[in-house]
């Protein structure tokens, strides 16, 4: 006799401990919800791993955990973020992202309808980026042991021959380019925090940047030394890291750094500095001075780079300071972020 299994009640049901126990309920959740959302030939095989061909050349691999709160925010949710974040980490090497894995840690009682919405937007973000989520894992923990849902994604990508973007590559005289306005993601998240809620039209900039990166590489070639996406800790953390790793300093012009008025106002109100606020669809590129104009022009014709700007240059500095001429006319350091500005921003 064939065992009868009731369909997942996506609109009213919720995750319970059985969905993580390795039994039939788990199998039903995986096939009914995740496979549905991610649908591809690798998942359809139902193996504990997925096999794929490896071409010649260098590959990159990265992994990232997502604990953002709240799970849904203007411009995305934890699912789309988990795809964009990992795709971008691959893209910053100039690599083409190929495959992702996704691991879910779900709190008992989490609604199927929310999980489906999140899985669907992961599937959508992956399809838009041309990557496949080919393996995954599901765990369920007791109520109170996780805040709704945590996601981990890992990804692999392939680097075009001859390309080597790395943090130690910056040289004195190189220019600093950023792809657009700073702080959008952080402010969008904050505007929905329970104890902070405020009205703003700012939406997260969460997006996959690899096509954008490809168009920059086409314009700048080997003149592009390295790229980073300024997520946690914002542009300040990114440039301080690069300064340390390349053994130099930076001098920025505050007036050249694009920030949306709504973001500037929210930061003003909350006592934050947009340079330290997280981004999820922006990049900073360090490029040789002779290609800076061409790369900037290529960035500006792409939808993700309309507000791109040259904001400063690399200078010799034994202390590896990131200095900035303020719009007001004085000078300051843009230091590492100290402490925690905004917990659980991604």
């Amino acid at each position, binding site marked *: 006799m064939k065992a009868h299994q009731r369909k997942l009640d996506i609109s009213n049901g919720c995750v319970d401990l059985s969905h993580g126990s390795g039994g039939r309920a788990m199998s039903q959740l995986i096939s009914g919800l995740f496979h549905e959302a991610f649908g591809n030939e690798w998942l359809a095989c139902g193996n504990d791993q997925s096999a794929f061909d490896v071409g010649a050349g260098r590959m990159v691999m990265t992994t990232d955990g997502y604990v953002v709160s709240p799970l849904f925010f203007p411009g995305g949710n934890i699912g789309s973020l988990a795809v964009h974040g990992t795709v971008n980490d691959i893209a910053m090497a100039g690599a083409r992202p190929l495959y992702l894995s996704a691991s879910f840690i779900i709190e008992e009682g989490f609604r199927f309808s929310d999980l489906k919405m999140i899985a669907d937007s992961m599937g959508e973000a992956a399809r838009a980026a041309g990557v496949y989520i080919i393996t995954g894992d599901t765990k369920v923990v007791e109520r109170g042991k996780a805040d709704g849902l945590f996601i981990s994604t890992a990804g692999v990508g392939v680097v075009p021959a001859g390309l080597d973007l790395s943090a130690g590559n910056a040289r004195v005289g190189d220019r600093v380019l950023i792809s657009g306005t700073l702080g959008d993601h952080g402010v969008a998240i904050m505007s929905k925090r329970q104890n902070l809620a405020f009205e703003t039209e700012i939406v997260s900039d969460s997006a996959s940047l690899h096509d954008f990166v490809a168009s920059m590489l086409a314009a700048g070639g080997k003149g592009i030394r390295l790229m980073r996406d300024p997520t946690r800790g914002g542009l300040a953390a990114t440039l301080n890291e690069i300064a340390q790793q390349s053994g130099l300093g930076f001098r920025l012009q505050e007036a050249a750094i694009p920030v949306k008025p709504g973001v500037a106002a929210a930061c003003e109100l909350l006592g934050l500095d947009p340079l330290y606020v997280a981004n999820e669809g922006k990049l900073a590129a360090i490029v040789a001075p002779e290609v800076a104009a061409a790369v900037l022009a290529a960035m500006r014709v792409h939808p993700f780079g309309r507000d791109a700007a040259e904001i400063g240059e690399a200078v010799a500095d034994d*202390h590896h300071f990131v200095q900035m001429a303020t719009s007001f*006319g004085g*000078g300051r350091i843009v230091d590492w972020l100290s402490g925690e500005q905004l917990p659980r921003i991604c």
Partner: protein
Amino acid sequence: MKYADEFRDKEIALGLAKAIRSEADPEKSYRFMEFCGGHTHAISRYGLEDMLPKNVRMIHGPGCPVCVLPAGRIDMAIRLAERPDVILCVYGDLMRVPGSQGGSLLKAKARGGDVRMVYSTIDAIRVAEEIPGRAVVFFAIGFETTTPPTAMMIRLADKKQLKNFSVFCNHVLTPPAMQNILESPDIRNIDRVEIDGFVGPGHVSTIIGTEPYEFFAEEFGKPVVIAGFEPLDMMQAILMLVRQVNEHRHEVENQYSRAVTRDGNLRAKEEVSDIFEPRDQFEWRGLGLVPYSGLKLKRAYSKYDAEVRFDMNELRVADNPACECGAILRGVKKPVDCQLFGTVCTPETPMGSCMVSSEGACAAHWTYGRFRDHQQRRAS
């Protein structure tokens, strides 16, 4: 950003900088103390020091409420947070302030204490309403600016008959601290620090008005200019001070006239005096015990006073002997004069309170200004 960018205009700033340069007598030196941590932060954040001539120097004052809180009060809060029946609601920058023996509220929280970061007093009231079974204590801190909101929340709690809400009161007063600085031997007798004038607090003065400073200007013969917190406010206030010094005047002038009046906010003052009364003395980090410089809840509201409700003992502990926060808060030393600065004491691992709050002199210099130390060293 409208209503803010106008006060950060570079062209006007350059004009003011030029006026300061041409009016400041090169034979004289001008040393002005900005009392407020908010001003310290603005000076560093916008790099104002670069725009002033060498003989016009700013001395950072003690007006950072987090910085002047003595370690003993932090220890008292930690003890409170360790009680299983208590939820302690605090502002974020208090979390890392060091108590004695390396303790902090952040560490107390990690060990299981229920310490919650709030953005305003009303958040603490909300927590108390949501969790009626536990005692919610709001860690109240700040100068005259933040006292009226605390007073209003106590009144609100009273109206709502919230039995589980109380306040650990650390509100302090500006004028007694200014007087203490001017009377301290460092400044009066030994003449180690000459202060030629004060940039007076802006937000505090929206509440108390400009009138309380008239005594200082008169008694100590020092000019006072009440200033706003935007960089242009600061530049203009500095120019006004230079002019007073040049003209041998010592008056209270109000640069921040868009927000401050002579009498201040009468309604707020009334609210505060209904609920609070001065303590005989209160300990300030750096200044020691200062008479009538702190507030406590009046007897009629003592059920909302955490110190009464939880029978808290006043703790007094010594600061790290190598930490120069005290001298820095009095303007006697600069952050770089402290041997801990930038070595064991950084914003990540603060030894003293001046390194904790973004309004603290050490944190401001470390975060925004320390590149100048290297420039100076190279130049010399």
